[in-house]
């Protein structure tokens, strides 16, 4: 047997497993389940080829059958993973890693003990597809190239964009109209399918298939592939798999010490190659010479667009929001003020679907949305910014703004952005004063710019209502004045209804048409700025009487 060809086959095989871990990771899921699906795919191929196929004379297994098995294994794992993916959906980070690790061990022990998987011995005499082992290169090479190219394509697609948004911040992604459950399950299932297909192909390579094929050591090794290769692209995952699996062979002259050296190299790589062998590349895009003006719109300002009816949110015994009824008119700038802990942000959370209502209803555009999910509300035109800023910090300003287009389907995008979404994004950067920062990572911006970016991102989605949570917190007087002017334009030029929470009282009094005051979760006042300013209950609960403080 030609040893070198065999090493290359193993490198390709492990590169594929690296990719199978990378795909769920694209969407932020650290799943270590690959060996389980790899094992399942292998068992499927082993069973089909030993039980169903009977060779009268030919000793070689037909390649059409192999392809069929691979397809079937991919499909089976995809379907299985859809189910499991739904179950483990809400687990994040290390918890998901451990759940999937547990899955690997459970599958291994099952295969070890079940009768039809052959127990500890496994399934042996799996028919060969090629005369010589090096022939499997012609199975693994096209498989690897095909999978890698497909995943590469996925990376640059809109689905890949949604995956990356989820990886950075699931809440922000949902608030932009991306359905986390759908995309995360998809990523998980694709990863499983890749592992399953690889397993099916490997069963023939190995000749015998048993429970030792899918162990937690393999999970951890695959994780090392991706981390050391670079968890940012398919090439990183593949390269990591290829190099680390070849390492023990390369180190063979060291004989018994090779595994120790292997471990040392893994430690060194994680310490000194923090970004991996294939680092994340910054996606710079040139500034176009011009872009079309932003499409303007007016709001008529009479009909109610959003209604809260006896809305309550209780956390255990705490009544964060209690029996609040409010109607917001289209085209209004509406202020929500009150002491810290009065329930203002909770109102935003329940309006946007981040927190379920305990009682009462929310109606938006004459639809009851009380039980709708976050991403559905975003798609219908309810957008928000966050008090604690939820940007995709590792992505550029431009990419952040573009993430808001997930609210629309392809056809809507064509009609809404005739010059393309990117041109529109540049126009919004101009509007918010971020033009010079298009290629900067959102996490590197200063606080004021991050607030403006959150606003630009929400505006890109052309919401009917924009909920702004403390838009000028931490800004100096000049910046505050600038932001105040922008908020006014959002309504005047684009017809967007604005609800804002803000502690900077002069701003609230200055631009709001109406103001509601919350205290201990209850509505204590509602009216025009002048009425609120002189309302004794409001002065007592919130404003105080010192003029200095108000003008701070």
């Amino acid at each position: 047997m030609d040893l070198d060809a065999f090493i290359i086959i193993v490198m390709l095989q492990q590169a594929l497993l690296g990719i199978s871990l990378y795909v769920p990771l694209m969407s932020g899921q650290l799943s270590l389940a690959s060996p389980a699906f790899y094992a399942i795919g292998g068992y499927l191929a082993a069973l089909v080829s030993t039980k169903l196929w009977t060779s009268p004379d030919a000793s070689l297994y037909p390649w059409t059958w192999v392809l069929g098995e691979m397809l079937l294994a991919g499909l089976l794992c995809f379907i299985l993973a859809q189910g499991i993916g739904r179950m483990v959906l809400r687990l994040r980070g290390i918890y998901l890693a451990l759940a999937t690790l547990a899955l690997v061990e459970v599958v291994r022990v099952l295969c070890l003990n079940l009768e039809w998987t052959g127990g500890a011995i496994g399934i042996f005499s799996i028919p060969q597809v090629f005369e010589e082992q090096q022939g499997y290169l012609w199975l693994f090479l096209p498989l690897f190239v095909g999978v890698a190219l497909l995943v590469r394509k996925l990376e640059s697609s809109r689905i890949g964009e949604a995956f990356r948004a989820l990886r950075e911040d699931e809440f922000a992604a949902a608030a932009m109209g991306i359905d986390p459950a759908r995309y995360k399950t998809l990523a998980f299932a694709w990863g499983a399918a890749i592992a399953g297909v690889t397993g099916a192909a490997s069963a023939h390579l190995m000749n015998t298939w048993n429970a030792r094929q899918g162990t937690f050591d393999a999970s951890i090794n695959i994780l090392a592939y991706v981390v050391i290769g670079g968890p940012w692209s398919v090439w990183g995952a593949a390269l990591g798999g290829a190099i680390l699996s070849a390492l023990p062979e390369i180190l063979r002259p060291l004989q018994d010490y090779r595994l120790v050296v292997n471990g040392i190299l893994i430690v060194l790589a994680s310490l000194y190659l923090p970004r991996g062998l294939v680092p994340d590349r910054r996606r710079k895009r040139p500034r176009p010479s011009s872009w079309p003006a932003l499409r303007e719109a007016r709001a008529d300002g009479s009909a109610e667009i959003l209604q809260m009816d006896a809305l309550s949110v209780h956390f255990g015994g705490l009544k964060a929001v209690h029996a609040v009824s409010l109607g917001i008119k289209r085209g209004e700038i509406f202020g929500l003020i009150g002491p810290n802990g009065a329930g203002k942000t909770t109102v935003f959370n329940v309006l946007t679907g981040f927190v379920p209502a305990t009682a009462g209803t929310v109606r938006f555009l004459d639809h009851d949305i009380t039980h709708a999910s976050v991403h559905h509300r975003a798609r219908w035109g309810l957008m928000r910014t966050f008090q604690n800023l939820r940007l995709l910090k590792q992505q550029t300003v431009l990419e952040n703004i573009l993430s808001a287009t997930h609210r629309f389907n392809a056809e809507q995008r064509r009609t809404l952005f005739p010059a393309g979404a990117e041109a529109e994004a540049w126009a919004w950067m101009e509007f918010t004063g971020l033009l010079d920062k298009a290629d900067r990572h959102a996490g590197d911006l200063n606080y004021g710019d991050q607030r403006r970016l959150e606003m630009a991102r929400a505006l890109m989605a052309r919401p009917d209502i924009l909920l702004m949570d403390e838009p000028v917190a931490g800004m100096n007087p000049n910046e505050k004045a600038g932001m105040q002017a922008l908020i006014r334009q959002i309504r005047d030029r684009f017809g967007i209804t604005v609800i804002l929470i803000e502690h900077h009282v002069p701003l609230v009094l200055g631009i709001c048409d109406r103001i509601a005051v919350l205290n201990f979760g209850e509505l204590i006042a509602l009216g025009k700025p002048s009425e609120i300013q002189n309302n004794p209950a409001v002065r007592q609960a919130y404003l105080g009487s010192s003029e200095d403080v108000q003008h701070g």
Partner: protein
Amino acid sequence: MGETPLLQLNHLSVQYGGIQALHDVSLHVASGEIVTLIGANGAGKTSCLRAISGLIAPAQGSMQWMGQDLRNRDAAQRVRLGLAHSPEGRMVLAQQSVEDNLKLGSFVHRADKVGCQQSLDEVFQLFPRLRERRAQSAGTLSGGEQQMLAMGRALMARPKLLLLDEPSLGLAPLVVAEIFDRMRGMNAQGMALLLVEQNAQLALRLAQRAYVLESGRIVLEGKAQELLHDSRVKAAYLGA
């Protein structure tokens, strides 16, 4: 300057995240004094406080504490010297009780049980609200109460100088007034304060002296009362 100031910064430069956050900054705080540092976002105010408390190492320049070089002392040792820092965003230990937060504030004096109890009583006297909530976990406090806890916790170390970063951030006007009132009280007991504040108006009214930071450099310094009426300061920071 006749006597040695409590804290003296000499030509301090700080790099932070690859950016030059502070440039050749020299300032001092005398004992019993309130000094404020004002400036725009990203001017380097927070970096300045973090350098003083030892959270980030300066690239150049030196710092003296009562005439003694601070160079080789880490954050924990500086607390022992009498330098406490109440950080931006309050950073209370959300999962621990109010009382445990406060007790941890006197970690450096933990051997002195009687003294710690006395400090605790004093803090509760200054912030009666914290006494009411002593058993509650700090994360359930309102923003204003968390700010009081952060200040109270810093007081537990019995500092000679308290660094306060944005105590009014995100607080309702009434609560801001209360917090500033407490600062006055603490100062009256002889504690020096170095205050970083977005609300320049309030800060300048409280402080005796002030420095104005712009892009990491000190561009103005003087009596707080004078800066309050300085036309440049008015235009840039007071929104006049």
